[in-house]
């Protein structure tokens, strides 16, 4: 039994809750939430982390073969919307979800609960206070050359969306200025990593001084000397969303999990312990200055847009 | 070129025991002759050969080839193999499989930076000599055992060394080919002015091929001599036994005069023509089966006639190999294929005094 597959036994005592629930999640560091859920509900939640890049393909491959293991899916909103179009998502109405701001719901079972907010993260020990960027374009200053880390803008969907989000929200006043920002960034030869995950390590160690990364690492990586640049412009990020699968093997447990996830308690844990920016009004991560920051969701890019922008960014950054 | 070996020692350690591969070997290998080191496996003959070539480093002693000391423990001289200008034929032939016949043979000349045209000419000549004309382009992997052996010989000879060494070069050939090659090899070597050192454990090979034979045992040279001396007049029981089958009968010398000696054994008295042992000394009479002569009942008995009972008669083609019981001793003899005897028959035979070899124990 030890090595038997997870998720294969199907208990169907109709009204009682199943004893487990499986979640596929793209968000990291959610262990505290899962532990609380397990101890409070008596249901065992199992989480498989899927990167955003693998999310759609894995779920669709399993779904097409009738072998989808997951009850609950957590991913950026556009990912869940693609899956909804394929019929993977259950049109579930969450009582708690309906108390969220208007713009976060009415997505046919998909609920947004947070923003994967992106900022300029720097090493607080090695960067002098007066050098910390005041605006995004400050990192185009040649003094940062060879000192910037970022996820690969040719392939990392969230970074691509963020860069496009800066343009669409007219952060720099004009499209030319936005281009100038990109070219200035490229001229500083940033070091590329696969995704956001590996961005803080080189900043912590001083290998790099600053990066395009997420403020949540200030919490999860403590006591690493990380800080975020309080730029004058707003912060942007893709909305994080959650939904139940249409053919969930543990439908009752899945609903219980969903309600738990959207509850104030969970969003509290997420912001308090994981540093997430959640959409529950009045709840902020314990990061200095975030409470007053203007954090905005960016528009979902379609898959084609991401690929074509990725190709454009690849050219801009290769030209350095 | 003469090879002079003095006080050569080489000890190995194996499982806590010290094995004396060379135990104070002193030897002079004469110039331009075929010298064979003969002995059972493990006697040290190959170690000695490899020490001469320089593939093995002895512990003590000195080796001198011609006028050059190539190794000396006292003078701290070590001339590496490649500088000793020798030729060698290995047991496995060691033909390089990635080269053709020409390149195999030309290799020693190429190492001497000899011009290409001369190399070609000399390779052709040596190929002619070993009767492999036209084999230049043949890949080494497509040679028969006998051909490989000739290529190996050609390679050893091509640089015209003054000394050539052979490490059991015929042991991988089948019996018939071995016999032919042996003859050829002897004629090749006698034609050239070259000192040949030949290692083998095969006594027939040693007898047929050599000008001189050195018999080795336990890291020592026991006896040196030409084939006839080793065969007919061995001084040691070990040599006599190793060089051919023998009846070895313990004896005591009774009398000795200028014409010979008389010894006493368990199967009677023997008259021997040897005179090198004093009365009362303990010796061994060595009688080879092929020197025994049948004596019929009605003819007068010659000296050294012995009577016994036939125990066995085995027909092996040319002769009968028979065992005769004399008193309580079994004697091996060879009778002509024409005799008519069967087990149980009484029989008389004699040995001429010159064929009664006396050796030390």
């Amino acid at each position: 039994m030890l090595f038997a597959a997870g998720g294969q036994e199907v208990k169907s005592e109709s009204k009682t809750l199943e004893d487990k629930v499986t979640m596929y999640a793209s968000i990291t560091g959610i262990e505290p939430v899962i532990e609380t859920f397990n101890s409070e509900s008596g249901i065992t939640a199992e989480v498989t982390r899927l990167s955003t890049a693998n999310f759609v393909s894995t779920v669709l491959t399993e779904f097409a073969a009738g072998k989808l293991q997951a009850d609950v899916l957590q991913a950026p909103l556009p990912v869940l919307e693609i899956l909804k179009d394929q019929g993977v998502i259950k049109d579930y109405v969450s009582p708690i979800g309906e108390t969220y701001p208007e713009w976060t719901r009415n997505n046919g079972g998909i609920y947004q609960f947070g923003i994967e907010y992106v900022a300029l993260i720097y090493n607080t020990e090695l960067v002098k206070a007066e050098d910390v960027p005041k605006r995004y374009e400050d990192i185009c200053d040649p003094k940062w050359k060879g000192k910037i880390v970022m996820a690969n803008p040719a392939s990392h969907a969230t970074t691509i969306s963020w860069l496009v989000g800066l343009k669409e929200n007219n952060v720099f006043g004009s499209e030319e200025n936005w281009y100038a920002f990109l070219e200035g960034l490229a001229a500083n030869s940033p070091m590329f990593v696969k995704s956001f995950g590996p961005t803080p390590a080189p900043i912590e160690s001083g290998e790099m001084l600053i990066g395009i990364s997420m403020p949540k690492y200030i919490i999860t990586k403590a006591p690493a000397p990380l800080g975020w640049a309080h730029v004058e412009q707003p912060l942007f990020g893709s909305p994080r969303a959650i939904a139940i699968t249409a053919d969930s093997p543990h439908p009752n447990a899945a609903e219980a999990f969903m309600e738990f996830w959207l509850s104030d308690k969970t969003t509290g844990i997420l912001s308090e312990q994981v540093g997430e920016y959640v959409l529950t009004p009045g709840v902020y991560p314990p990061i200095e200055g975030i409470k007053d920051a203007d954090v905005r969701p960016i528009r979902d890019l379609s898959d084609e847009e991401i690929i074509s922008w990725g190709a454009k960014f690849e050219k801009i950054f290769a030209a350095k | 070129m003469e090879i002079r070996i003095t006080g050569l020692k080489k000890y190995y350690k194996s499982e806590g025991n010290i094995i004396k591969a060379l135990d104070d070997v002193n030897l002079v290998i004469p110039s331009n002759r075929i010298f064979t080191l003969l002995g059972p496996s493990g006697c040290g003959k190959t170690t000695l050969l490899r020490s001469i070539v320089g593939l093995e480093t002895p512990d003590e002693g000195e080796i001198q080839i011609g006028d050059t000391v190539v190794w000396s423990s006292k003078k701290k001289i070590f001339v590496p193999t490649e500088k000793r200008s020798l030729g060698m034929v290995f047991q496995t032939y060691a033909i390089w499989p990635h080269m053709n016949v020409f390149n195999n043979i030309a290799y020693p000349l190429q190492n001497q930076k000899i011009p290409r045209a001369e190399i070609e000419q000399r390779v052709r000549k040596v190929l002619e000599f070993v009767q492999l004309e036209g084999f230049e382009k043949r890949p080494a992997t497509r040679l028969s055992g006998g051909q490989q052996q000739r290529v190996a010989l050609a390679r050893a000879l091509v640089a015209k060394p003054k000394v050539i060494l052979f490490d059991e070069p015929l042991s991988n050939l089948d019996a018939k080919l071995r016999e032919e090659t042996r003859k050829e090899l002897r004629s090749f070597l006698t034609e050239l002015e070259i000192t040949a050192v030949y290692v083998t454990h095969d006594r027939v090979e040693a007898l047929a091929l050599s000008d001189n034979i050195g018999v080795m045992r336990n890291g020592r040279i026991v006896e040196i001599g030409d084939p006839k001396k080793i065969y007919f007049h061995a001084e040691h029981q070990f040599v006599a036994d190793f060089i051919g089958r023998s009846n070895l009968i313990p004896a005591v010398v009774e009398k000795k005069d200028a014409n010979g000696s008389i010894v006493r054994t368990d199967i009677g008295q023997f008259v021997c023509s040897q005179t090198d042992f004093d009365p009362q000394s303990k010796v061994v009479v060595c009688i080879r089966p092929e020197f025994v002569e049948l004596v019929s009942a009605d003819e007068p008995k010659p000296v050294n006639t012995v009577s016994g009972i036939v125990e066995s008669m085995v027909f092996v083609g040319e002769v009968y190999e028979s065992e005769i019981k004399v008193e309580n001793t079994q004697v091996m003899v060879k009778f002509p294929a024409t005799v008519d005897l069967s087990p149980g028959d009484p029989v008389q035979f004699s040995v001429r005094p010159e064929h009664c070899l006396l050796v030390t124990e």
Partner: protein
Amino acid sequence: MIKSQTRLTWVLIAILALLSLSPVIMLLIGSFSKGLVQIGDFTLDKYKAVYGDVSFYGVLGDTCVFVLCSALFSTVLALFLAYLNNRTDIPGKFLFKVISVVPMMIPHVLFAVSWGLLLNPSNGILNLIFKDVFRMSHSPMNIYSIGGMILVEGRLDLPIAYLIISPAMASFDVSLEESSRVSGAGNIKTLLRITLPLLRPAILAALILCIVRCLASFAVPSVLGMPANITVLATYIYKITTTGLIPDYGKAAATGMCILVLSISLIYVYRYLTRSSEKFITVSSRGFKPVVVKLKGARIPLFIILLILLFVLIILPVLVLLYTSLVPYSMVPSAKAFSMMNLNHWKSVFTDSISLVSLKNSLFLSLVGATLGTILSVFVSYVIVKVKTRSAGVLESLSFLSFSFPGIVIAIGFMWLFVRTPLYATIWALLIGYIATYLPYGIRPMTSAFIQIHSHLEESSKVCGASFLTTVKRIIVPLLVSGIVSGWVLMATMFFRELSLSVVLSRPGTETLAVMILKFSDDGLWGKLSALGIIMIAISTLMVVSANLIGNRFKPASD
């Protein structure tokens, strides 16, 4: 007797075809399919898209440089080490075993990461030391470069090259060299004109196998190549599967096809070479120990080089891991770093339930998988070596196929395959995938062991009236023990750190250690990654040592 052998051959062919052909077929179908993640609607679009793109050829160029140089580096280093070990009087020969086996147990991601920490241009520890000692204003080395990638990848593939070259060097007929010495050539000339040319098949075989492994290598290009924006085929495929929200696996499969075709062709060249090597390398018929080349004055300098290699290859990366596992976040060694050291990463690894599940799974996969794989290898090698029918030839070709599988490509084929079976999302899917992909590593040592068994040994047993099974049990197995042990060890250590298949096939409950390593690396948790990595290395070492001990007990006493 003959009949049972024929039946055995066909059963094995069926098993191997299922194992190694089916994922390739799935991949092939997928690459011609229109749908992004589904199969069907055949089209050539994916191929046109991949091979019509000019940037692809730039990637191909970088790949060639990376792959060829890395393979050359491993082979030359392996040759140097094998020569020192087998043919010279260098002291400390047990070190060679350490150098040749240990790098195999270090997960490649860890190795790449620790080199990043050592040699990054900003504050790599070694760079800082060099700057300090030689008073340089710039870092002398940049690991994020094609040169850095080659250096690290070359070291990672060293064991493969060494394991091929060293036995060839050891079984070399020494009289071939001795006759060269007698012919007037010195040590160096003999090495260049006789030894190396004779070892050419083994050297080329090692080179080719390294090329194939480099083509499939992902850890080094992603950790060290991506920061410098250097893309090779493996990371190009990764980019295709990660750009955008719906990855185009068909396009990835179409790209992967060129690696697969290249690898398969190379593997067949390799087979051709190793076949002809049998006629070249003749085992000395005498009991002479190979003559040792006396290094004299070079003995100590070469030994120091060996120690430096050992330090650089094994000790340094492991030390970096140990250090990283103890500091709370990535930091350059300093008084502050040492004062902040604690065991938090270790504690969190040991209390994390998924880490423990993955440890259990990896142990199961490694022990059971390697055992099943070894049993299958024994039968396959037996048929390949001893049954000389045409069907045995088919089996041999099949058995080599998965040597050429680039993990990142073939994993997709396996996913498409397993999702159509009840095995999907079970540990058995991983088990079967592992065995299918790594079977050649079990078969190879076993085949050489079988070749060593003289046919007459078996026949004498048969004449004695022993049945086929008794022949196997009484005669062959005891002689095979060393082959079995090395095959098992190779498979067990590879399974224990397997990544490319696991990451695609593992699901909740079937996580493996390498998947955890990748998860930690994706999340930038270098501390936990290092702690888990050290645990993996320790367990692998334990497995290797105990397998060797057990193997020694079965060997005949005379050995």
